[in-house]
């Protein structure tokens, strides 16, 4: 886990200690952020006048009455808010520069013979403008999924950070992504039954491959899975890799939950689940986490007829662990809407008949929630001791419109917050040309 830190330190040209475990200078620095309103990100209410201590790229302590270690670099956050870095719960961050410019878009591969084996990691471009834009808005990590192109399995997604260095991937092959709703039916040839048959057959193939890799003939005409795809599904069927399943309707969700009876080891995570609230008890009983769209309110498709912004609040109230994701929602660029979305769920607490989230729960839905869905809550997503030191100091309530990060750290390394957009903005702060053309102004 210290590897990313070391990488980063090297990139920053910082000297680091001999002995391997000694962390790099930047990450090794002890920083104490004092005086701010501190929100841990675990669902608890914010704490005024709290302190956050970071050392060796990890959180040491956060809260009220936390002692400032001698020699710590002090950051005065008086009048500001301090939170964990936000995690994009479901995104395609880093996979596209301009969505509609195909050459820059690595989200899906229509012409590939592979599916489940596709690993998005080499498609993550740390220099994608969206990485910097989202970092400047407080997003420090993202769950990044490929999209389906030729069949129901899209491939293996990654967990990344948004740091300004070139080492973006925190965990490659962090999960498998599959479509089993309307999109899955389409990919499977036109029906949900075909999609489920494809799912079962391919997982059975993966089991067969696991028993005897050498005997698996992925090249035969009858084989649905290439050897690479079969190998990629082995950790899924054995429960070593989470399976993110995109479905929206209540009946589709129940069908997915039933798959656990057939493949008991599956570590299911529901993605989308716009009608989740209609089957919230069943989801809670199955102990399956959900990464949901926050604000879908329209029957945008027939699988979302019961969509309501109260979905997440109602799921939470039923005991379902739920996080906010960007599902078919500008997910390559606008994960930065997460705090606005979370704030809107707080607004629902004042709307008669609606169910929202408390402020602390709303922040958790965009910090520890996504980490928890992938089983990574011990590593990231909150300011609890031992987590990666992804910390944001905000100039106001982070869920409020217009609040922005004033300072931001990833793995304890402070990050730049200037984007290409800021440069354009500054060039045209006065639109008129000056003594030389705009091209000379920078």
């Amino acid at each position, binding site marked *: 886990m210290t590897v990313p830190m070391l990488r980063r330190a090297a990139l920053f040209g910082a000297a680091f200690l001999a002995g391997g475990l000694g962390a790099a200078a930047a990450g090794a620095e002890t920083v104490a952020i004092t005086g701010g309103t501190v929100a841990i990100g675990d669902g608890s209410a914010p704490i005024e006048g709290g302190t956050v201590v970071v050392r060796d790229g990890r959180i040491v302590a956060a809260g009220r009455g936390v002692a400032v270690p001698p020699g710590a670099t002090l950051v005065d956050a008086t009048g500001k808010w301090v939170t964990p870095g936000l995690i994009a719960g479901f995104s395609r961050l880093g996979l596209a*520069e*301009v*969505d*509609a*410019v195909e050459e820059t878009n690595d989200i899906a591969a229509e012409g590939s013979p592979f599916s489940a084996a596709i690993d998005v990691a080499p498609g993550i471009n740390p220099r994608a*403008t*969206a990485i910097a*834009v989202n970092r400047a808005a407080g997003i420090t990590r993202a769950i990044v999924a490929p999209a389906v192109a030729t069949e129901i399995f899209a491939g293996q997604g990654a967990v990344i950070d948004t740091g300004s260095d070139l080492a973006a991937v925190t965990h490659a092959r962090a999960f498998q992504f599959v479509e089993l709703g309307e999109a899955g039916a389409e990919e499977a040839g036109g029906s949900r039954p075909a999609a489920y048959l494809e799912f079962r057959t391919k997982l059975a193939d993966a089991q067969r491959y696991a028993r005897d890799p050498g005997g698996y003939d992925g090249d035969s005409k009858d084989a649905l899975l290439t050897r690479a795809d079969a190998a990629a599904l082995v950790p899924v069927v054995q429960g070593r890799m989470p399976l993110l399943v995109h479905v929206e309707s*209540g009946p589709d969700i129940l069908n997915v939950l039933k798959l656990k009876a057939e493949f008991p080891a599956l570590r299911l995570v529901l993605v989308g689940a716009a*009608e989740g609230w*209609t089957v919230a008890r069943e989801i809670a009983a199955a102990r399956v986490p959900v990464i949901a769209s926050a*604000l*879908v*309110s*329209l*029957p*945008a*498709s*027939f699988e*979302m*007829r*019961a*969509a*309501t*912004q*109260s979905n997440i609040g109602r799921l939470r109230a039923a005991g379902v662990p739920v996080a906010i994701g960007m599902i*078919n*929602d*500008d997910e390559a*660029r*606008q994960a930065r809407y997460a705090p*606005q979305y979370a*704030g*809107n769920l*707080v*607004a*629902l607490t*004042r*709307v*008669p*008949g*609606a169910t929202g989230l408390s402020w602390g729960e709303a922040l958790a839905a965009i910090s520890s929630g996504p980490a928890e869905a992938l089983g990574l809550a011990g590593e990231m997503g909150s300011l609890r001791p031992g987590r990666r030191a992804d910390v944001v100091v905000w100039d106001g309530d982070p*869920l*409020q*419109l*217009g*609040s*922005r990060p004033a300072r931001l750290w990833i793995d304890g390394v402070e990050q730049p917050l200037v984007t290409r*957009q*800021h440069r*354009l*903005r500054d060039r*045209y*702060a006065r*639109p*008129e040309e000056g003594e030389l053309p705009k091209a000379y102004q920078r």
Partner: protein
Amino acid sequence: MRHHHLVVALAAAGLVGGCAATAGARPAGAPAASGKPVAAAKPASDPFPSTYRAYPGVPTLVTNVTIFDGEGGRIEGGQALFAEGKVVAVGAAVEAPAGVTVIDGTGKWLTPGIIDIHSHLGDYPSPSVSAHSDGNEATGPVRAEVWAEHSVWPQDPGFTRALANGGVTTLQILPGSANLFGGRSVTLKNVPARTVQAMKFPGAPHGLKMACGENPKRVYGSRRQLPSTRMGNVALNRQTWARAAEYKRKWDKYERDGGEPPTRDIGLDTLRGVLAGDILVHNHCYRADEMAIVLDMAKEFGYRVSTFHHAVESYKIADLLRENAVCSAMWADWWGFKMEAYDAVDENIPLVHNAGACAIVHSDDANGIQRLNQEAAKALANGRRMGFDIPDEVAWTWLSSNPAKAMGIADRTGSLVPGKMADAVLWNGHPFSVYTRPEKVWIDGALLFDAQDPARRPVTDFELGQPGEGDVK
């Protein structure tokens, strides 16, 4: 719907006319059919007339409320009186008749209803199945003959969300942006109805949707036909305007001198209406350099552009837009989904405003239309971070009076001024806070949404008998 970005982007090109414009309140034309036949009969200019009638309201006094009047004014602890569908009085204290319904606005805000100048509700309704895809007549780049109102499905649940979640009381439905000439727009009161005619804003001028840039050249270039380039876009535009000018000369002469009527052309009727100043041009255009070309083309053929829509590079030519009195209808922070949106900045709206040009917040999105107040709030905060001193109440003009001017309806709605339509929203907090929602929405003085009263929450035919019917959404 965001999923649709490309479709919407396709759909989203339009020129709008200058804010301070102009043709303003001029109706698209009076029905011609009722007159006696004359030698030179004008074609009916309003063949699908509005049948909208305001629903009944009760005289209502909102007290002790913070008021943004929509024209830049603000009153703390103020009062507003509506009666007979109109704003009667707004002030620190107003005289109210006995028996008036009093609403305590303590801790709340009262604003004019939001006007969305760029929507495809009804034309790309929910659910967004292909059978519902009625926003782009992408069978030819010049389709001035189509009218968006003929595609509007009044049962689109999106209208009700725009009302209840968004406080939208008036909206312009535009054809998409696949074509250079996309067709006529229609302005609607956001009141559920059985027919589109019963939603049509009485007397609102039609708009003409035009599109610059990537969409037309991609759609037709991929079919190996004109236009496949930006220069092809302009060439076909100019050829079309030249035809329209000739058509207008013939019809003007006929209407003046009589004789044999020229052959009717439904598309050229629309363009003639633009050249006569009766129809407002709403031009989808992203790039600054293309907007400048359009402004010259408009001068060449003698028409005005009301508004550039999307206008993500307006900040680069805000001075030019000010000088030409053209509005920009913009998103707060959309960017990067296509090449011509690559240079979008989060400060576009405040930069345009700060330069003295007309700024409008628009949605082009069935979800975004539910949060236009939040879009304005984000833009405002970004402007203040640059040091621009823009008061909240002035920023509200981006949501009401500026779009009203650009749509030619500012004499009737868009601000809380006595005599105007009582189109208003009571918010349960500051409307630029993420924690705020509409509490009550009035259209022409009729209470059509009340968060406290499930009976004042519209449910479309589509949603009746479906899972989630009547939910808060």
